């Protein structure tokens, strides 16, 4: 991700250390001090100030990036909404880590799920290659004139952020050509056309401004598909809202995000070898949530296991489980859906466990109660 940032070569970065995102800015600081990028780096005194400085910078017309994780994202929370509301296309490398408490530095998705409705575009990555590819595309998506919303890429802490993998790095010039120049319509440094950013907005205008931002998020769907396709033409790998693996004739589908999707492929292969019609839907884009597309892709599936690497305190289901079920409801399909909460605080999930989940889900009858609809996988109770 630091390598993607070097190639993106932003005008300004502001960041604060937090495990496991620290290494991104650490490596990037080396690029700055070795003169490999034109970036001015602000080593702020907190994540709240990191996002505040990013907002000032983006409003001043500079392409701006940051990186954070977990508690850092939580400390930014107030500013995440404002960055989106002010339509500032900041790009953030987010490394997923469990939220305290108790404190835990390992992977789950509770940090970004807690901030899922802040107005940021959210792209999940299965591996280091996707993290790299997503970060480059995030710049284009965020700055798209019909979108103008900030974007983060989600990357599983330690599993991806500290894993050793081969990554195909594209030539600097091609990446720079792909992202183009950032030319905002207004900026705070043009004194010939002074602007006021962030005026107090009362009941007579606030609603309209929020609605305009939601429209940006809706427009992001088209931008994500177009830019993902263009990325494929340029660099070889096309990206969309999600990826299907043996899904077309599947009776049971695993729906997963992040690195677990890689593990799930092995599970699907093994299940298929045993004659079970199992498939995988790997969700890449969580915001905007591609509800109609997901429902269409899962239309023929009779049983679904939704894998949530975070839990919400709604005493009902995990965030992905809730939203996917809403999408299916609207589409009029009613597969038997079981929501699995798994891997909190970095607990590993093995492909044999995913095989068990698929087999168990396929046998599931009509879920009768909460305990059969939502299963805490692998927890000692």
């Amino acid at each position, binding site marked *: 991700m630091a390598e993607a940032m070097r190639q993106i070569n932003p005008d300004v970065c*502001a960041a604060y250390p937090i495990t496991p995102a620290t290494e991104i800015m650490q490596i990037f600081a080396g690029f700055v001090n070795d003169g490999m990028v034109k970036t*001015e780096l602000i080593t*702020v005194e907190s994540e709240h100030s990191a996002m505040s400085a990013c907002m*000032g910078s*983006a409003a001043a017309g*500079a392409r*701006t990036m940051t990186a954070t994780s977990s508690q850092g994202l939580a400390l930014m929370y107030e500013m995440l909404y404002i960055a989106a509301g002010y339509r500032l296309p900041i790009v953030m490398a987010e490394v997923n880590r469990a939220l305290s408490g108790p404190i835990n530095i390992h992977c789950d998705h509770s940090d970004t799920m807690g901030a899922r409705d802040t107005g940021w575009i959210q792209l999940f990555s299965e591996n280091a290659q996707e993290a790299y590819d997503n970060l480059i595309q995030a710049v284009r998506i965020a700055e798209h004139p019909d979108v103008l919303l900030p974007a983060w890429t989600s990357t599983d802490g330690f599993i991806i952020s500290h894993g050793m993998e081969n990554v195909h790095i594209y030539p600097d010039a091609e990446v720079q050509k792909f992202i183009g120049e950032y030319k905002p319509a207004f900026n705070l440094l043009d004194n*010939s056309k*002074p602007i006021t950013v962030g005026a107090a907005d009362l009941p007579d205008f606030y609603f309209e401004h929020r609605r305009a931002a939601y429209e940006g998020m809706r427009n992001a769907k088209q931008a994500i598909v177009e830019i993902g396709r263009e990325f494929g033409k340029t660099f070889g790998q096309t990206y969309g809202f999600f990826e299907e693996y043996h899904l077309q004739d599947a009776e049971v589908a695993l729906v997963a995000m992040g690195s677990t999707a890689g593990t799930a492929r092995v599970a699907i292969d093994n299940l298929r070898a045993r004659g079970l019609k199992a498939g995988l839907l790997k969700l890449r884009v969580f915001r905007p949530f591609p509800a109609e597309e997901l429902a269409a892709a899962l239309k023929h599936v009779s049983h679904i296991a939704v894998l949530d690497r975070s839990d919400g305190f709604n005493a009902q289901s995990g965030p992905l489980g809730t939203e996917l079920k809403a999408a299916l409801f609207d589409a009029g399909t009613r597969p038997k859906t079981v929501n699995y909460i798994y891997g909190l605080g970095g607990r590993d999930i093995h492909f044999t466990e995913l095989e068990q989940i698929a087999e168990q889900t396929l046998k599931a009858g009509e879920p009768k109660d909460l305990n059969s609809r939502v299963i805490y996988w692998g927890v000692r109770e």
Partner: protein
Amino acid sequence: MLNLKQLSLQEKKGLAGGHRACSGCGFPQAINMIFGQSTVPVVTTCATGCMEIATTIYPFTAWRGNFMHSAFENAAATISGIETAYRSLKKQGRLPGDDKMNFVAIGGDGGTYDIGFQALSGAMERRHNILYICYNNEAYMNTGVQRSSATPKGGHTTTSPAGKVVPGKVQFPKDLTHILAAHDLAYAGQASVGYHLDLMRKADKAFSLAGPKFMNVYTPCRLGWGSDPSQSMEIARLAVETCLWPLYEVVDGEWKLTRKIREKKPVTDFYKTQTRFRHLLKPENEELVKEIQAEVDKRWHRLLLRCGEGA
């Protein structure tokens, strides 16, 4: 330095008329007197508070130059992002034409002494080329007069009410200008809107220096203080004459008193002008006032020593 007549004629910086600040409010005058001293355009950020609300209700703005507000505690962090963007784009040759400008962040005492303190300290430590202005009216006025760490001891606010047992705020105010001076700034100054020449001279000096600058400006709030709006400037002077708010500056580590007080007036002279201190004038609070006077004397004496005035 512009004089008041020149200031009244300049139309490119600071606040235009028609903003919604109360009559007798101290900050609009302070802002225009300070901004008028900048010889180049000013880019401003502001903490949430009266000033932001009174000057920017959409679709109107009173700001003649570029302005940004986003939240309460982050005016210093936001201006540091803008100033950094400026340096980045300037070095890349991507700024149009005459590209000199000043960067100013403004906060009330709540947004500066309290919730914005960390961001302010951070921005100053990183030595951005910015001027931070605190307009200090000694409480959270925008939310309805709650105590801040700038509220004077004994002062009545809605969260430190003058009650039957506790007579107003218990603690003495935090000496923020001193704390900021300890950041080894290019400039740190304490001013009062009531001494306009001193205020404008300080702004002129601050704008002439590169690096991190801080001004703590005393600005009365007639609503929160319970004072006559026509008397705001007199009250702002009285705070200086009682040594509750001494005028001084610290330039490159050198402390200098900018207004010598030969005959210190008693704090009760100041109290008489505002209902927030009404209870302190009652006989039962005589001892408390003596204690406050002693602390004011002590702080004044300490300041004189620092400024080489050998009291």
